[in-house]
């Protein structure tokens, strides 16, 4: 009994010694504070053989990549297995690292929690930036999520200091670390089918192409901006995290002139800059108003139908190709339901995808000679909007000539009541205008018309106003009107050869003196003319002349017509100047 107790004590001591050897030793992180882009190392050691130990699942930490290498055995007595873990931060900050787990001989050993402090790389932050951008913060399940990653480098720094990062010369000597641009857990990634990317750079660990996106002014400095785009789609509801991108580039501060290579950097430094992560809210597709014809397509789509033949015999097979193009994710799209397709038997369908979009090729057979068309085929998709709504589009009916015995062709089934149809003017654009006026009236005007309308009414009004003012003036001065008319009568008479000017002269003088014509032939005419501001000599001449009229009436000869005209013009000048003086 005593011997059995000693053996038990020995076993306990041996186990205690073994357990002591199985303690997990964690060294690191080394260094405990790193700059962004640099890695810190953690070493985990346990005193058992490699075959008896296994590293547990590595913790997932936002912004910190933890990668483990293979276990390494060292020593013989004691035997130690060591794992070297690499901690690569993607953003500055303090990272709290939970305990690492190691399974050793059936026991799970835990390390102590650790902390890693990460600071910005001042050079990287000063001369470059990197960012991920999405147009919205909220998306639907299966909706295409366009993500643009842009990075920029100070244009002057890029031209003068940035040096090649690798042996292979790159157009943009930079490396973008963003594994999610190629593969993301829980989401599909699609690169654009047509890209303007032409500049070589390094994406993760291989050469790729990036597009120049122009320049950006930040704090008065110009950055040359590069961008690359991806489209994501996820079938998971909840948060979709696009992790922080990290940009790495090399630069030199000193250069030397080389006879062959030109300007060659004399030193080599590396810089890093990180971007912010993007957190998107992914919502489920609404259940309300979801039509039963919904195909799973999310986005905006167009639908075209094409028949392989336009004429065939009943019972022969033809192909109907439905081509769906749009910005949705093809793999999520189910084929539109053709069954029942009135007048046809649907034999089968092949799905294919090319640069133009998605194509569903149906093999269909017209049942009888009464079939005159391939009926419209509905396609229902979810338009994320705004506003978000289920939409149904239909192909146009395709005329068909089917030879064969006539038969029954039932009509298309009526649309389901639950089907939500976009209402133009509410949640869809208004449709086409089906008429255009044949006279070409677009409401345009010619320059001449504009000028006419702007000038003519004013000119016309001005003319009417001048006329009316003249008329008013005449109405206010009847004597003046009589005088002007008398002068006109005299001038008209003077212009006619052989006309008798005597009466016209008398009428003119009477009008000017504002008296009846017979009253002109009276003594004192000279004085009356002088009183009317006519020069004395001219007044006498006129009086003498008019007295001559009386004599002429008794056979005395009259002076020549030229004298009369001259006299009247002189008198008119006299009356006018007198009138002005008056």
């Amino acid at each position, binding site marked *: 009994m005593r011997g059995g107790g000693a053996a038990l004590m020995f076993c306990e001591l041996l186990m205690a010694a073994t357990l002591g050897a199985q303690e997990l030793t964690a060294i690191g992180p080394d260094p405990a504070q790193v700059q962004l882009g640099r890695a810190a190392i953690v070493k985990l050691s346990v005193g058992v053989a490699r075959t008896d130990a296994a590293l547990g699942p590595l913790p997932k930490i936002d912004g910190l990549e933890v990668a483990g290498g293979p276990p390494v055995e060292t020593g013989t007595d004691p035997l130690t297995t060591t794992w070297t873990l690499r901690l690569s931060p993607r953003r500055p900050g303090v990272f709290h690292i939970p305990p690492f787990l190691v399974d050793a001989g059936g026991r799970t050993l835990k390390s102590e929690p650790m902390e890693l402090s990460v600071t910005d790389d001042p050079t990287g932050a000063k001369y470059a930036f990197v960012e991920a951008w999405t147009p919205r913060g909220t998306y639907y399940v299966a909706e295409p999520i366009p993500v643009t990653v842009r990075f920029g480098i100070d244009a002057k720094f890029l031209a003068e200091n940035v040096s090649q990062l690798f042996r292979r010369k790159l157009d943009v000597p930079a490396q973008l670390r963003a594994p999610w641009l190629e593969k993301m857990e829980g989401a599909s990634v699609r690169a654009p089918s047509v890209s303007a990317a032409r500049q070589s750079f390094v994406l993760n660990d291989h050469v790729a192409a990036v597009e120049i996106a122009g320049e*950006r002014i930040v704090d008065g400095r110009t950055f040359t901006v590069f961008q690359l785009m991806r489209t994501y789609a996820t079938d998971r509801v909840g948060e979709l995290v696009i992790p922080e991108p990290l940009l790495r580039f090399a630069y030199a501060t000193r250069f030397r002139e080389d006879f062959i290579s030109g300007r060659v950097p004399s030193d080599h430094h590396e810089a890093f800059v990180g971007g912010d992560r993007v957190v998107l809210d992914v919502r489920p597709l609404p259940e309300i108003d979801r039509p039963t014809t919904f195909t799973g397509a999310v986005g905006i789509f167009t639908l075209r139908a094409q028949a392989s033949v336009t004429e065939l015999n009943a019972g022969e097979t033809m192909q109907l190709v439905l081509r769906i193009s749009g910005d949705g994710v093809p793999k999520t799209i189910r084929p539109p339901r053709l069954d029942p397709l009135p007048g046809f038997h649907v034999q089968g369908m092949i799905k294919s995808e090319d640069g133009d979009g998605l194509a569903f090729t149906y093999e269909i057979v017209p049942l009888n000679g009464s079939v005159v068309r391939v009926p419209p085929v509905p396609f229902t998709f979810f338009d994320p909007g705004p506003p978000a709504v289920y939409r149904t589009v239909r192909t146009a009916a395709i005329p068909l000539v089917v030879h064969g015995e006539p038969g029954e062709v039932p009509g298309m089934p009526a649309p389901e009541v639950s089907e939500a149809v976009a209402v133009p003017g509410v949640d869809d*654009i*208004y449709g086409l205008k089906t008429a255009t006026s044949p006279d070409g009236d677009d*409401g345009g005007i010619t320059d001449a018309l504009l000028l006419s*309308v702007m000038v003519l009414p004013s000119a016309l009004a001005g003319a009417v106003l001048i006329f009316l003012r003249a008329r008013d003036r005449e109405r206010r001065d009847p004597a003046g009107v009589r005088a002007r008319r008398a002068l006109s009568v005299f001038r008209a008479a003077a212009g006619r050869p052989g006309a008798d000017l005597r009466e016209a002269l008398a009428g003119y003088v009477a009008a000017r003196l504002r008296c009846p014509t017979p009253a002109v032939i009276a003594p004192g005419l000279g004085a009356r003319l002088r009183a009317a501001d006519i020069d004395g000599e001219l007044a006498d001449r006129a009086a003498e002349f008019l007295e001559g009229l009386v004599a002429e009436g008794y056979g005395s000869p009259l002076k020549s017509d030229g004298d009369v005209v001259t006299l009247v013009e002189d008198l008119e000048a006299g009356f006018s100047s007198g009138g002005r003086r008056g």
Partner: protein
Amino acid sequence: MSAYLLVTLVAALGPTSHFERGLAAYDAGQFDRARSAFTAALADAGVAQGPILYNIGNCAYRQGRHAEAVLFYRRALLRMPRDEEVTFNLRRVEAHLGIDGASDRSFEAIVLGVVDTMTPAEGLLLVGVLQVAGFLALVVWRRRRGVRLAMGAAVVVALLGGARLVYRQWYAPPSGVVLSEEIALRAQPHASLPATLELRAGEVVTVEESSDRWMWVVHARGCCLTRRVGVGVVD
């Protein structure tokens, strides 16, 4: 039977004009073909362009080319300024692009907005009628003070409206719509120079001057030169 023959005949003959072909293609969901047909219809002599431009805008919208849709809706709006369908579709596509369609709320902008809801022909007719009526009344009732004042005011309004028409016809610079996803504005016409401003697709600018390759554009946030290819002129 005769009706069937007629339908078959019409189907065989198909639409006759570019416009009708565009309508048929659009109904069939063939928006690229519809757009080509409508574009060809623009060259047809003696047809109003407003509805055709609107239809091209619809095709562009259905094709997902929203910035181009904005351009064509705005071109249609020049010809049909009070058309509610054009206005609605324009606002909708601007919403798709994330463009704030809210307009200037100043008094001047509101007044000019009211004036500009008329086509030039309508405006000219109104100006002409106001002028003639005002002048006639001024002539006929020129001794009645009340009428004279009212008609004088009518004539002044007509002349101001006419001045606006003259400005729009001869002096107003056209507006433009950013067609590229993003365009950069620069102080000088050199692509290597830094950008002073970036504009997004669908944003509207005023095109002050343009050459074969560059445009001087004015935006609420600034004015500078940009490549001509990135901007569609609303004409």
